[in-house]
């Protein structure tokens, strides 16, 4: 016992707050967003390695425009701009990485404004939106600037980097780019091909994505079931059309499927809550991606697959309410 007199702090010095009085320290909404940015680093790194300054410029424009849009729309809605939650930066980065290297800078900027404005602010801000903001922005510019974003836009015969003179793997498969052999699976996996900035390297997406899942900033069920759904649909597509140049592995590694599975579909706000719901959602995304690739005139199907599944997410949530531990309470009279 110490001899010093016992001191009791005056009552007002004590904080009163509802419990629990402990919270998980290394997991906050902001940290989740920071995790996504961190996980995007390998993806962005590969993009810069392949597309050089095109990638740097595109990503920078999109992030800057997204932040600006967030500040502006928050202002209009008379809210303090919640830029510190980093969600606008994430939207900008994902949008940037989903654009082709050749898209003019204003496409990215307008896409970012559409993403934040239409995709998020119009619904009431973070947590309220139904659709993945980055995909809303991507869809917006896909329609508004169709030519800048069509399969052909990826290719410039006069481009300084040789890779940029080649058609994207999925355009090749569509046959829209003439009869050239598809790249092998290995370059597809590593990413040494043409395409949207962030989609080319399945490996980089896997590295970043595994980090996200390990941190639990993304729910692991979503990428797993997205890939499973795509694989299942690809098997069926192959059976129906054995002549297609796209094998199951091509479907998995080409295009934006890995980027979509780990970074887009996993957006918590627009995907279901429960593990079972996430599985249904992921599987749906995977199937739709392959379906759109094979059946529509678009070479890639990620944008519409995500938006479609986003729109049924409330339904999925309703259909996948987990069974409580021990089952529901039975109330007299069968009331709920």
């Amino acid at each position, binding site marked *: *016992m*110490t001899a010093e007199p*016992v*001191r*009791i*702090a005056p*009552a007002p*010095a*004590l*904080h*009163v*707050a*509802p*419990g*629990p*009085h*402990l*919270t*998980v*320290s290394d*997991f*906050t*909404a*902001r*940290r*989740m967003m920071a995790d996504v940015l961190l996980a995007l680093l390998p993806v962005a790194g590969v993009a810069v390695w392949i597309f050089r300054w095109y990638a740097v410029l595109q990503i920078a424009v999109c992030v800057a425009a997204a932040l600006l849009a967030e500040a502006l729309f928050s202002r209009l809605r008379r809210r303090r701009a*919640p830029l510190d*939650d980093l969600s606008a930066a994430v939207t900008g980065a994902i949008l940037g990485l989903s654009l082709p290297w050749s898209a003019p800078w204003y496409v990215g900027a307008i896409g970012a404004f559409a993403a934040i404005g239409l995709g998020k602010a119009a619904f009431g*801000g*973070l*947590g*309220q939106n139904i659709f993945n903001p980055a995909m809303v922005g991507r869809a917006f510019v896909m329609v508004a600037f169709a030519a800048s974003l069509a399969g052909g836009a990826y290719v410039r015969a006069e481009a300084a980097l040789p890779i940029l003179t080649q058609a994207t793997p999925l355009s090749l498969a569509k046959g829209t780019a003439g009869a050239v052999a598809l790249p092998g699976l290995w370059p597809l996996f590593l990413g040494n091909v043409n395409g949207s900035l962030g989609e080319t390297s399945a490996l980089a997406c896997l590295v970043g994505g595994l980090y996200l899942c390990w941190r*639990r900033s993304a*729910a692991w069920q979503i990428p797993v079931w997205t890939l499973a759904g795509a694989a299942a649909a690809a098997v069926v597509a192959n059976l129906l059309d054995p002549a297609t140049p796209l094998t199951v592995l091509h479907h998995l590694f080409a295009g934006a499927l890995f980027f979509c599975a780990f970074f887009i579909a996993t957006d*918590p*706000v*627009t*995907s*279901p*809550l*429960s*593990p*079972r719901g*996430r599985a249904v959602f992921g599987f749906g995304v995977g199937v739709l991606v392959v379906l759109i690739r094979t059946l529509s005139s678009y070479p890639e199907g990620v944008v519409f697959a995500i938006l479609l599944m986003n729109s049924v997410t409330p339904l999925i949530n309703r259909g996948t*309410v*987990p*069974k*409580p*531990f*021990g*089952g*529901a*309470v*039975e*109330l007299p009279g069968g*009331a*709920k």
Partner: protein
Amino acid sequence: MSWPSRRARTFPHGVHPPEEKQFARDVPIEVVPTPAAVAIPLLQHLGAPCQAVVASRATVALGDVVGRAEAPVSAPVHASIAGVVQRESVATLPNGRHVTTVPIKAAGEQLEGQALYDAHFGGDWPLAGLDEIAPAEIVAAAGEAGLVGMGGAAFPTHVKLAPGPRRPVDTVLVNGCECEPYLTADERLMREAALPVLVGAKLVARAVGAKRIVVGIEANKPEAIAEMRRVAPELGIEVGVVATKYPQGAEKQLVYALLQRIVPGGKLPLDVGVVVSNVATAAALARAVLRGAPLTHRVMTVAGHGVREPKNLLVPIGLRLSEAIEAAGGLTDDAARVIAGGPMMGFSVAYLDAPVTKGTSGLTVLAARDLDAEPERACVRCGRCVDVCPMGLLPTRIALAARYGEWELAGSYHARLCVECGCCAFACPSRLPLVQLIRVAKARLAKMTA
């Protein structure tokens, strides 16, 4: 989703908060000096409040009844020191309830120090002959001694021990999990007084006619496990080690972990043939039956960065919280929050002159640096709350419904099943006050069905 059925000594979901047991786990139970006065609350249990049965200025001895109620679900309260009764007063308990108290000013000879400790935990505890005691006698002794569940819920023990004949009980679980961070009172009890705990468990089993007794202890208390294992075989009691995970000590979760039985929604462990008793309650029952001593004292932990000398204290019921803190060296300069109970389920208290009750398992005193500075944000629908809820609920959905006053909707998401463990709010990255909102929904739903 079906719940995992493999024999795992834990339960699905839950969280791993920092354990923080280092503050007081190796500090032996210390007897608090007899205070100048105590204030005995007339309602310390789940059920009907007591009426004072002693007049102002009457002289009472330690253990004299000062309040009782006629209602079947209630428990009498007793003088925790010898002294003179004062005029009835009112106190605000940490859970926000205003209750009448009977203050007693210390006077005359007191049982204190080592003698008090020995009266509680020392001396001989008969291992034989327990099976000759009539169950009715045990139930009556528990009722007379004012025993309630000392793990928090404070449900009268004699009611729990007297189940209807249509519900046979085959197993008694003794809850020594103490899964709340910071608290170490139960751990000390198991290490210092294994015998009364186990004898009490025997008596619980005798009262309800159970054959099997299993003590559940979290794996982070190896000394307590060893000590209980040393004594338990003699009494035919099993000691089961369960995973260190919160809320391992919640009844339904413990029943599942140790017996793989699932308590149906809205039902009690009793419905699957189990009675769960906290270790402190078991020890108090042994004292009540074998020594005729009522529940006048309890062991509580005072720990955290906010107190100078974290301790486990044997305190009289009705001691002011501020005196318990003084006994633990007083608050530090940066003490910021005093919590009655552990940090997960405890209530923060504004006034430290509230009395200790039978259910006060400890005080957690957090310093400013322990408090979370993260702002509340919008729900990002990440589903972490869903992933951790031990009851398999959708906390975010119930909370959202509660926010909009949609009570029926909250009910359809099974709000009633929430055990208010706080896992969801602990894990929420947006720091939403989920438990608070769900509690409101539960209260409204209870009113609607009533």
